[in-house]
């Protein structure tokens, strides 16, 4: 029982980590605080559901569509909505405020569209739903697949960003958008890419989550919230921190829901958040700002 | 006689870097002291430690006998320390007059009503920009923005004024105006600690200087003594010249 809970928590945490990684890219590099992140995720989850039920397309194939589609749509959102705000903002604080407000509006638009199309009921479908025995515990195959794919995507991105030249330009913009142009980096292009990758990860996370969790059109907000908390716990802009914090959050939440009460899942996340705020506001893996 | 501002073993560590290393010196009431040192020697950090922008890692700072090390910046401001910033910081959405009213309202004496208006106008007059009271600070020239910052520091009616390269970036005529302005303040009996690179200004304004290098105190004495000190020359020019 204990091991099963741990495994289920780890699996859930893997998708949290992936979604939070997306948010961290958008906030850490593109400087956009995207409150509609969870809506991107839910939209992708509905895509997977529709394609699976309607066309018999397995979610893993949908994933291959969702990743580039999420990238393209987010690229568009950045170009149309965010770029004018970036150009207009005289400082980072103003951009933060404007992007929070603009994406808050976007949240309601996306949620409204999904409510219109799919209604407000919880949805799920059954795919790879047979148990697999792992170290004596049974875990559904879909969860295991989702976990492996999440971690592969997450760690793959981490390696790209920390080990490649392209990754270095992203990190440069994250650290200092003002001085990155001095070494020939096109900040605007990098920010657009980072925002689009963030959206791509949200879409991927949505498809993966839909394989083993019931979801509804109004459920994006809670995912955004958890992703935000993971980003802060991991230390803003710290990708490895976000991955570890995501896994930790998944485990803690699963323990609370299975041993204490499923109604307290969000409360447990918030208690963790408050502890981090009071004890290490720079994040568990962040460094203190001087 | 006890000192007005007294630093003892003030230390600041950023991770492995020792930015300020056990600084100890006193300022008597009415003194104007220059804080010198090459770039990166920790002068601005020390000012930040005194004003509370950063908490010191160790050591103590006393103003008129009261311990202020580790207090928040606003508490230190209310204890009678005011400062200007190396890079000018104005309040862009408020008029020049309103900028100067702020410390009068929240400083040690917490004035309100007509009183903050009177104090702000007096301070603007003191620095010579009373005629710009209703302008927006963003429209001011660089030197006038610096004057505004000085007026704002004065409006707190501080015991000790910390000037962080207040004269930097001025052209030769403005520099003469600036030096004259600080000398005028000096005659009101205010105590000033000023970080400065312009030797002309240091010689003109400071009878005494404190010199830092690599975070530590390397000289403290009359300006002439200090500027002739081989350690100081070595710090500025490199060891080979010593």
């Amino acid at each position: 029982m204990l091991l099963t809970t741990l495994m289920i928590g780890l699996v859930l945490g893997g998708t949290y980590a992936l979604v939070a990684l997306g948010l961290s890219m958008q906030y850490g590099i593109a400087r956009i605080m995207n409150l509609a992140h969870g809506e991107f995720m839910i939209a992708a989850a509905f895509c997977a559901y529709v394609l699976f039920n309607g066309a018999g397309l397995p979610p893993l194939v949908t994933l291959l569509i969702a990743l580039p589609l999420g990238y393209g749509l987010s690229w568009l959102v950045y170009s149309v909505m965010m770029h004018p705000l970036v150009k207009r903002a005289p400082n980072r604080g103003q951009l933060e405020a404007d992007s929070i407000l603009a994406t808050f509006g976007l949240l309601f638009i996306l949620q409204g569209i999904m409510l219109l199309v799919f209604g407000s009921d919880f949805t799920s479908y059954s795919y790879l739903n047979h148990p697999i025995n792992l170290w004596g515990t049974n875990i559904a195959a879909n969860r295991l697949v989702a976990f492996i794919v999440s971690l592969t995507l997450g760690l793959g991105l981490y390696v790209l960003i920390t080990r490649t030249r392209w990754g270095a330009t992203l990190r440069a913009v994250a650290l200092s958008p003002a001085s990155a142009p001095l070494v020939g980096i096109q900040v605007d292009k990098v920010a657009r890419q980072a925002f689009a990758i963030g959206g791509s990860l949200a879409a991927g996370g949505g498809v993966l989550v839909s394989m083993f969790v019931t979801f509804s059109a109004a459920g994006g907000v809670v995912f955004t919230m958890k992703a935000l908390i993971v980003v802060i716990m991991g230390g803003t802009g710290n990708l490895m921190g976000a991955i570890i914090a995501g896994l930790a959050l998944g485990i803690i939440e699963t323990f609370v829901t299975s041993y204490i009460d499923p109604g307290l899942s969000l409360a447990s996340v918030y208690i963790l958040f408050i502890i981090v705020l009071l004890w290490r506001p720079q994040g568990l893996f962040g460094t203190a700002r001087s | 006689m006890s000192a007005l501002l007294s630093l003892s073993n003030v230390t600041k560590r950023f991770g492995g870097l020792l930015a300020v290393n056990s600084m100890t010196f006193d300022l008597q009431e009415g003194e104007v002291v220059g804080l010198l040192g090459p770039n990166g020697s920790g002068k601005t950090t020390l000012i930040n430690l005194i004003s509370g922008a950063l908490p010191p890692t160790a050591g103590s700072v006393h103003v008129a006998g009261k311990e202020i090390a580790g207090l928040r910046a606003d508490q230190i401001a209310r204890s009678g320390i005011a400062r200007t910033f190396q890079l000018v910081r104005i309040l862009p959405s408020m008029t020049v007059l309103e900028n100067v009213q702020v410390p009068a309202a929240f400083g040690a004496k917490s004035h309100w009503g007509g009183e903050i208006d009177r104090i702000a106008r007096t301070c603007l007059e003191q620095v010579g920009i009373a005629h710009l009271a209703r302008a927006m600070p963003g429209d001011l020239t660089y030197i006038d923005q610096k004057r505004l910052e000085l007026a704002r520091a004065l409006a707190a009616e501080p015991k000790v004024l910390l000037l962080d390269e207040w004269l930097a970036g001025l052209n030769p005529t403005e520099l003469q105006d600036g030096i004259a302005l600080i000398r005028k303040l000096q005659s009101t009996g205010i105590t000033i600690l000023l970080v400065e690179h312009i030797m002309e200004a240091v010689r003109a304004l400071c009878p005494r200087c404190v010199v830092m290098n690599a975070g530590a105190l390397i000289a403290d004495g009359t300006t002439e003594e200090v500027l002739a000190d081989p350690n100081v020359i070595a710090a500025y020019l490199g060891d080979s010249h010593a």
Partner: protein
Amino acid sequence: MVQKLLKPLLIMGGGAGLAAAPVVLSEYALGFMVSVMSYVTLATAWAMFSGPTRYISLATVAFYGTGAYTVAVLSETLPYPLVLLTALAIGVVLAAFVGMATLRLAGIYFVVFSFGLAELVRQLITWFEVNVTGTLGRYIFLPFETQHIYWQLLALAGFTIGLGAWIRRTRLGLAPKVIGDDEVVAAHSGIALARTKVMLFVVSAALMTLAGAIQSPRWVYIEPGIVFNPTVSFLTVIMALLGGAGRLWGPTLGVIPLMVLFEWLSANFPDHFSILLGALFILIVFLLPNGVLSALEGWMKSAKGQSNGKTIEEAQT
């Protein structure tokens, strides 16, 4: 001198006219006015904190809902004034707790916390009701007609605007403006940053809690899902922004046209309501970043041929 007298006379006259409204208005129109007064309170209270500090609070309904739910729980056991006081106290404690946990840190922590606060409170209350009291969903039987609720909310809205006007003349009004401009200068001028922000947040949240408490008898039946409706937070922000969160009367000015619009939208496009609202919200952020009032001022200045437009822009950012 005449000008000086004119303003209080106008306000008193307007207030008297509004107080007499139930005599002439239909039940439907009065219900609409109840919502208007409620949102005037919420938007003005929101702007009181978020306007000058620029900390965007998305938690309006957390307090509003807490107020409403407190009344639902206590209305049968305590006399009404005591119920209101209890709601107020709960709102103050909740706001103080949230404020002390987040307002010492950068604004983003506060936004994130406020984003989920309503959902958190809703889940906690639901959990408590299901597991401890066993009664999810409550009825409110208070002997109030629509006009009684209207008068109370009118008084609260008037009080909120009056309080806003008064705070503007005190240190508590000046301090957040300085903080909004430059926190470092604010601290070095002797302003206690965290205390100022927490105090303003608590005042603003207390007013929101009261608005929810007073309006709650309108529902008759209350359940956490009803009173913690995130649309309330959303509408509050959009109204305050439309009018201009930096002005005393800005939020009020934003409430009236938007309430009319919402009423029309929800009657004609009930299914597209939130999509249209979201689009409108984005439009406002893009076109009127500082609200209608300052945009008008900017246009008037540029119409007069003064080239100050740029400095106004800069001053507001």
